[in-house]
Every structure is written in C-alpha cells, then in structure tokens.
C-alpha cells in the first residue's frame, strides 16, 4: 500500500484494523498495533515524504500475528541507536516515536542507509 499524503493515513489505519479484527486480535493489542503503525507512517511522511507499507498475516503453530513493513526512500537515519533513545528527536516532536513504537509491538527491526532510505518492520502477535 502506498502512502503519499496525510489523507492516506486514516484509510491505512482502517486497513490495519480490518486485518487485526480478522485474525481476532484483542482490542488492546489492536490499538497498540495501529498506534505503532500510525507513528511509523507519520515518520515516513515527515522525513521521506511517503513510502510503501507491506501488510502480512503471519501464522505459526501457536500464534497468529500481523507484520507491517514500512519502506521509504528518504534521507535515512544517521545514528539508529540515538534515534531509538527516549526523548531524542531530530524534528519538533516528543521524541517518543521510535522507542515508543518498539514498546508497543513484539518485534521491531530497523535498517537504514543514509541517502537511500529506511526500512522498519514490526510484528504484533494476536495474544502478545
């Protein structure tokens, strides 16, 4: 799914919610996942002017979950460790985006090359 402008955010969140409801995720986990997704989409719009999101339903023997992969061709992140620290922000925000997002999901993976773009992938289990 492509995200290019602010107005894409709400339909995108609804799509994520649809998927989460379909696999029977609990309300709290749904909210966490959608909030995390919303943070990442916002980052993508703000720093890279848009990008793509891949939505997958992951099934394992004991659990089902949703994986979202956010890919942009933005400026990239210089120091990932610094960006992951609470209270740090290069823009004018609270600096809770990335570390906060990490706390909301079960798995969080970020890769970034300066000048080429950033890929963030998050995974939330149904009962996690």
């Amino acid at each position, binding site marked *: 799914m492509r995200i290019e402008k602010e107005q894409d*955010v*709400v339909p995108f969140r*609804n799509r994520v919610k649809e998927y989460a409801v379909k696999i029977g995720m609990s309300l709290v986990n749904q909210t*966490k996942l959608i*909030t995390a997704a919303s943070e990442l989409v916002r980052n993508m719009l703000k720093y890279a002017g848009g990008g793509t999101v891949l939505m997958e339903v992951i099934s394992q023997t004991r659990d089902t979950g949703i994986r979202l992969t956010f890919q942009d061709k933005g400026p990239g992140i210089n120091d990932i460790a610094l960006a992951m620290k*609470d209270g740090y922000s290069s823009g004018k925000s609270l600096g809770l985006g990335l570390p906060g997002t990490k706390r909301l999901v079960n798995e969080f993976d970020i890769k970034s090359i300066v000048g080429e773009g950033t890929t963030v992938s998050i995974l939330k289990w149904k009962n996690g």
Partner: protein
Amino acid sequence: MDRIPILRMGHFLLVTIQIDLYDRLATNLESDLVQMVNKTEAKGVLIDISALSIVDSFMGRILGNIGSMSKIMDAETVVVGMQPAVAITLIELGLELKGVHTALNVERGMELLKEKIGSYDREPEDDEDSTE
C-alpha cells in the same frame, strides 16, 4: 476544509471528536480552540475523545499543547472519555499527557471544571483529582 466543531457552554468550550483525526485536522483544532478561548474568554475547555480509537504521539502532543496553551490563557483543559485500550497504549508509548486533566465522562469532566474554576474565586483548594 473539514473542521471539528467547537461548542460554547457558558464559561466552557466543548469539543467532541467524532472521527479519526488526520494531522491537518488536529492542528486546525489546536489553533481554532486557542482562538476561541481568546474570543470567548472561556475558563474551561472540555475535549471528549470517547470516539477516538487511536491516540498516537502526535495526537497526544496536540492535546498536551491545547492544555498548556489554554493554561497560559487562564483556562483549564479536561480530556474526557478515554478508551481503556487507548490509555494503556499511551502509557506504553510513554505519554502521560502532563498538564491536561482527565475525567471519566463529560458529566464528571464538567464537575471537575466547575470545581477548578470555582476555586479561583474562593481560596485555592488542593486538586486531588488532577493528573499532575
């Protein structure tokens, strides 16, 4: 351009957010509200977010901003009706909405506002229901 309606009730301003906000709408709300506080000399702002299923850090910041801005214009802000799932998510995210009072529902929020504004005229009481 869509706007969130702001209702005036005596000394208070009442805002009910019924749809999921995108960023522009939220920033508009922020500036509109501050304008309204100035124009109406409102003493209290009540924001009902019971219909919001998502509050992310941006939205949280807007709410916080409204609270602090109103505060320096001598108005109290109460956010009411937060969903349990939203509260848990906000805490996990690390947002505590400092500077904003909270209440369970509109009724309680009104009571809280009246109490707070009443306390200006009389001697200041300690506000145990606040979120500081």
